[in-house]
Structures are given as C-alpha cells and as structure tokens.
C-alpha cells in the first residue's frame, strides 16, 4: 500500500455515502441467507403496527412535537392519508373531531393556519383540504369555505405571478403547487390564479434538469414534484424541458434502491414519493415528451415546429380545474423508468419500522411525515406497471406478499383515488363561476406587498 489510507482521502460526501451503503448492505445481506418463505415475511408491510402508530398520533402527541405546533393540519394529513392508503376506515366520532378541529384552524377570511388562531398559510391549507377530502364525508367536504379560500389564494398571488406562502411570506414553487392543488381539487381554479405561474416554474428548472425552489437554486426532488404537478394541473407541462427532467430524475435512484433528493446527496425514504411520483407522472406525458424529443433531435426540427402547443391556445375558463381529472384518463405508457422493485425493497426493509411507522434511512427515527411519504411512494410503485390506475395491479408488480397492496393515490394531489373521485363529484356541481367574488381591483389583492 502506498499513500495515505483511503478513508482519509475521501470527501465529506463520499464518507457519508459510504456509511449509508454499509448499513443498507448489512440489511440486504440478510436476504441472501434466508428461505423464499422467509422473504415474504421479511418483506411484509406491518399494517397493524402502522395503523396503531398513526391512530395514536391522531389523538395525542408527546411534548417533543411542539416544534410542529404550527403544522397541525399537516400532522392530520400525514396520519389520515397514511391510514386511508392502508385501507382503514375512520371512526365517525374521530371524523367529526377532525372536521371540528380543522374548522378551528380555518381563517374567517379564508385558508387554514397551522393551528387555531394562527394566520392562514398555503401549506397548511393544502394539508387541511387534503385531510378533509381524505375523510370524505359530506360534512367534511362542506366545511371548506371555498368562496373565502378563493379570495385567500388571490391575496397570496404576487404581481410576478408566483404565490406567497402567507401574507408577506416567502415565494417559492411549494407555494405555487399548494395553491394550484387546492384550487384545482376544489374546482375553483381560474385564469387569474394561473396567470404567469408557468413562467415562474419554467424559470426554476435548472441546468441539471430538475426544478429548484426559486430561480437559480439547486434542482431538488420536493420542488420538482411541486413544479411538475403544478404545470400539469394548469395544462402547461409542455413548457418544461421534460427529457432533461427525466434524465435527472432517473439518476436520483442509487445503489440502495431508494431515491435521493439532490445530486450526490443521501437516499431518503420520503423521496420515494416526491421523485417516484415525478417519474410516475412522466408515464402519462408520453405524447408531449416524444414531441419534445422530435424537436430536440437531429433533422426533425421542421416536424416539431408544426406541433400544436397545449398552452398556446390556453384552456377556457371552467376547464382549468378538469386537468387533474382528465390526466388520469391518459393511459400510463410502458413501465416505470425507475427500478420499482428496488425502491419497494428499500421502503420495506430500510424505511419501515417494525414497531409502526417509517423513517428516512437506517439509523434515523420514525415520524409521521416519512410514514406518509414512504407509503405514498410505495403505492405509486405498486401501480407503476398499471396502464389504468383504477385496476388492481398484477401480483408481479407488488414486492412481498400481495397483501402489501395499498390503495392507489391520485399522483397530482396525493390523496387516495376514490376520495379524489368523491370530492371531484361533490364539487363538480359548483364551479368557480358560481362563486361571487370581487374583481382583483376591488379586493386590492395585488397591493399588499408593493
């Protein structure tokens, strides 16, 4: 041996990566030495334990949770959505209590805050709306003041087109997604809300291919999901460079089987959804992608120049909210562009906590956030070979026992599919046009921050 020991020459990134690889490979090594029957046991989804962990959290949380005191609708969503994906129903009393609690978080002037009496915030509004849709009762769906919510969303819209998280709050791709997602699912999306968002999100796509939180920041899985989902919901996905986005996203899957959030960062179970759903969404954008490839590649430019742009004409008022619904009717082409089996293996063996719940990676602790997004990622994986998400997948698409199969989710909103359909039907009769709402000038929404 010559030179200094190898470890001392490794950079911080290499050292951290090596540590994770060692832990994961120790876990996977067990697989090699057990019988096929034991595989099934090892790869089982511990439903009872997860439901127990989640139901307990819905009622009472330890003092250490005070750091999430401004995120209580999120806690509701993470837990309710996880339970719904596991196929459990909700006790009517619990359902009533959640509706009552979230109503206390609803601001008299629209939107939901992080707890009773807190300012309305777009992220907690998204969490509250998705929670109520997940509960699915008429009472839950009726408890949302859509008229006021619509005004709140317009108040949060900056003159640049992007949204702010709260009154005078930060402006980023999350804000755009949460605003457009709730407006779309509640059937109150209109051209005023959509105006110039596409331009903002396009400006956040980086040279790497992924999308950043703000222009010039680093491509990131969470923001990439938010940006892509927003563009699909407003019917402008063709404005993104999708081939480079796909190329960046597929490389986020590492040797561990799980997904990382950024180039050369560590694997984290929550990106099973953020990145996994991005690649899942791509399967339904096949026609836009092939059009972009035609215009990108050699000698086929003239052909592409003739293609009609989805965004050029712009959908008419009232049609905007239907993008989330019609997207599901587009068949999912081919198989997933990532290794679905390897990702499921990472979620079940490295993120799953046998006492209930999921975690980021081996060596970390479980929490409700990771539980929600590991399960959502697992669900996306299980249906990734299905052309139509309404049909159950073949057993070969589900790693471990077939009982691991979760409920399918709507990949743009991340709510369980049948709850989405119910909400869609419920709000379909009363589109935004029926809501009385003052014009932008009258409500002064553009003036709050210069």
């Amino acid at each position, binding site marked *: 041996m010559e030179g200094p020991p190898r470890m001392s020459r490794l950079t911080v*990134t290499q050292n951290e990566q090596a540590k994770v690889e060692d832990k994961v490979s120790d876990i996977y090594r067990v697989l090699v030495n057990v019988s096929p029957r034991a595989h099934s046991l090892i790869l089982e989804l511990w439903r009872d334990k997860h439901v127990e962990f989640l139901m307990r959290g819905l009622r009472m949380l330890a003092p250490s949770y005070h750091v999430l005191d401004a995120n209580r609708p999120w806690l509701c969503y993470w837990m309710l959505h996880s339970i719904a994906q596991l196929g459990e129903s909700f*006790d009517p009393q619990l359902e009533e209590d959640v509706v009552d609690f979230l109503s206390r978080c609803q601001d008299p002037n629209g939107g939901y805050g992080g707890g009773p009496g807190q300012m309305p915030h777009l992220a907690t509004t998204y969490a509250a709306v998705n929670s109520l849709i997940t509960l699915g009762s008429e009472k839950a769906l009726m408890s949302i003041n859509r008229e006021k919510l619509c005004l709140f969303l317009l108040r949060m819209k900056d003159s640049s087109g992007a949204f702010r998280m709260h009154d005078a709050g930060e402006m980023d791709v999350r804000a755009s997604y949460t605003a457009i997602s709730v407006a779309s699912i509640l059937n109150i999306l209109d051209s005023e809300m959509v105006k110039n968002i596409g331009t903002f999100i396009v400006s956040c796509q980086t040279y790497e291919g992924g999308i950043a939180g703000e222009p010039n920041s680093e491509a990131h899985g969470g923001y990439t999901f938010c940006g892509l989902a927003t563009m699909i919901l407003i019917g402008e996905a063709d404005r993104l460079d999708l081939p480079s986005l796909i190329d960046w996203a597929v490389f986020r899957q590492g040797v561990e089987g799980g997904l990382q959030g950024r180039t050369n960062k560590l694997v984290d179970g929550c990106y099973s959804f953020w990145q996994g759903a991005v690649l899942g969404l791509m399967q339904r954008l096949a026609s836009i992608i092939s059009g972009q490839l035609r215009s990108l590649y050699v000698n086929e430019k003239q052909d592409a120049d003739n293609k009609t742009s989805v965004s050029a004409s712009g959908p008419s008022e009232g049609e905007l909210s239907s993008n989330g619904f019609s997207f599901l009717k587009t068949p999912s082409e081919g198989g997933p562009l990532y290794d679905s089996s390897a990702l499921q293996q990472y979620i079940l063996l490295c993120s799953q906590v046998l006492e209930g719940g999921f975690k980021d990676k081996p060596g970390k602790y479980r929490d409700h956030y990771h539980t929600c997004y590991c399960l959502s990622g697992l669900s996306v994986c299980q249906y990734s070979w299905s052309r139509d998400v309404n049909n159950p997948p073949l057993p070969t698409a589900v790693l471990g026992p077939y009982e691991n199969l979760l409920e399918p989710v709507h990949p743009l909103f991340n709510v369980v599919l049948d709850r989405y359909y119910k909400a869609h039907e419920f709000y379909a009769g009363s589109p935004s046009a029926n809501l009385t709402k003052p014009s932008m000038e009258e409500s002064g929404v553009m003036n709050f921050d210069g």
Partner: protein
Amino acid sequence: MFIPLKHTTKFPYLPLSTIIPQSKRPTKINSAPPSEYPIPPPKTVFPTNRSDLSIDDAKCDVFIGRRRRLRGGEAPDLHEERVGRRGARPQDDGPNPVVQIVYTREFRETMDYFRAVYISDERSPRSLGLTAEAIELNPANYTVWHFRRLVLETLNSNLQDELKFIESVAAKISKNYQIWHHRRWVAEKLGTEATSAELIFTKKILSLDAKNYHAWSHRQWVLRALGGWEDELDYCCQLIEDDIFNNSAWNQRYFVITRSPLLGGLQAMRDSEVDYTIEAISLHPENESPWRYLRGLYKGDTVTLTSDPRVSNICNKVLKSNRSHVFALNMLLDLLCYGFVPCEELRITINALKSSGSDSPDLGLASTICSILESVDPMRSNYWAWRRTNIPFQVC
C-alpha cells in the same frame, strides 16, 4: 440460488415474482385516545368582546421577566406563578381535540401570552420579548415571526440587533423557512450595509453543512439584491476543492458564471469552464455533478455541444480508462441523438465495451450504447430501453 443477484452482491434485489400469498388482514384498531397522557383537553371560549382583550399588564410583565431570567439559569417550578393569568389567551382546540400536543407548561404559558398580545395587536417592547420567547420554543411558528416583523417596524427597532437574534436562533436550527425569510426581510431593509455580514453569515452556516439549501438560496438572493460578487467564484473553487462531489457548490458556480455582472456571462466563461469541468471529470468520472455542469455550459446550444471536440474526447478518455462508464456513455448517447458523427477511434472504443454475449453487429452506435448501459446500469435498465426506442431514425 433462489435470489438472482440482479445488481451486485452488496445490494441484492429481489425479483418481483417472489410472492407467497398470505391471508392476513389487519385487525380493527380502536381509535380511542391512549391513556399515557391523561391530560384533560382545555375547555375555553375565545373572547368575542374586544374590551376583553386587554391583558393583565403586571402578570404579563412578570412572566416575561421570569422567562428572561430563566434562560441563563435553572428552571424552577413554574406552577406557583401561574395563578391568575388574567388576559392570557389559551388555545381553542375544541372539546375533543385531534393531533393534540401535550405542551410543557412553559410552552403553553408563552403561547397564551403571545396570543394575547397578537390578538390585541399590541406592538410593544414586551410583545417583542414575547415573540423572542415563542420563537425560541418553536422557530417554525410563522405567525409569531410575522407579528415580530410588525412590532419591529412599529418600534423602529435596531436591525443589527435583530441579525444577532436570528444568529442565535439559527445556531440551534438552521433548516427552517421562517428564519431565512425573516433574515431576508431584515437584510432587505438594511440594504447594502448588510452585504458583507450576510455573506459571512451564510459562509458560517455552510461551513457546518455545505449543502444547506436555505443558506444557498439566501446567499444567492444577497448577491443578486445587494451585490458582493467579487470573491464568489473563488469561494466556489474552494468548496469544490474541499469536496468535489458537493453539487450545491457546482450549482453555485453555475449561478456565478451565468449571473455575475463581473464575468460577462455564460458565453464569455464557457471556454475556461469547460476545461475546469473536464479536469474534474478526469479525476472522478463517477461524479455526476461535473457531467451535469458540462451539459449546463452548452444549455440550449446542442450545435456547440456536439462540435466541441473536448466533450467527445473526455468521453473517449473515460471509456478507455476502464473506470465508471455510465455518465460518459449517457453523454455520448445524447451527442449521437443531436447528430454528432463519431470518429473511428471512438466507435472502436464503444464497440469494445459490448459484452461478448450480445452478438449484434448491425446495431447502430446509439443502440449499442443503450445495450451497454442496460447491462452496466441495471437500476435504470427501463430508462435505457426507453431511450433506445427514442433514438431518432437517422441515428439508428
């Protein structure tokens, strides 16, 4: 062997077909609250009468004074001092709360007093003190931060002191939207007098975690809004030298060469940047960051990308070096799709990588690359198969 070792022996992946059906249904879980936190839910009614909102000044001041004293020393039993908190505003969680957090007494009292001054919109020094207490307990409470800004504006407070306050909070938790949004607000008010302090502050945070997303966003905002570009490229060089895999540093480098008013933009910088990047690739061809950066240098200009011999040369060099091939092959695949015509030497290098088993001499070069990638990079075999179906007709 029942498990096909699909990838490496270090990371065995099970095939999806190893299914053994089990008929196991989850048992019904009782959703009643557990008994481990037998604290009765607060039953309180929010005041509707505005005159009820005035808070008990003496109690509140005593409370703040006590909290200040507590910060340095030990926490005494607070129970004695809780009596008669007239005016403090308990949280209205309703009769049957969900996701109820069992607050410590300290947390509950602080928030009760905060709510009192927030609801009555009292913009006073003691309100400022209360927001500091509340932020210390939960820096993610955006309502508290927002109210703090209103108070700071009304009191015309010293913003340099505010920067110090933020630093004390960030020392404990530096990954939080609220802290950084507040910092941006303060720096924006201070203007260019804050430039160097902000660059030093972010540098300090990045010295602890060189990939802190919020810190990088803030730093970019400082540079664009307030300036201070002079040493930024050197800073990027230093960080890349420390850790060549630090993608955040590469991203910052791209930001600097494309946006710095001192450097003349991407066109002017491209030539020297390509050399710098190719050197980084030669050192670690398995490092994705410089490969993505290299593409970025030719963003929107595939003609220049395909005609720059340095790009195909580095690919050729990596392929011949018997090191990690994936990124070099991916780059070549793109080049070919864009109309690049490879020299004979490169053709030979690529064909030499074909596994001996796959005997398909008539395959086009781009298809050959996809086949090689499918076998050397099985995690993405579906992706490479998809890429193969999208190779333009002329290139096949």
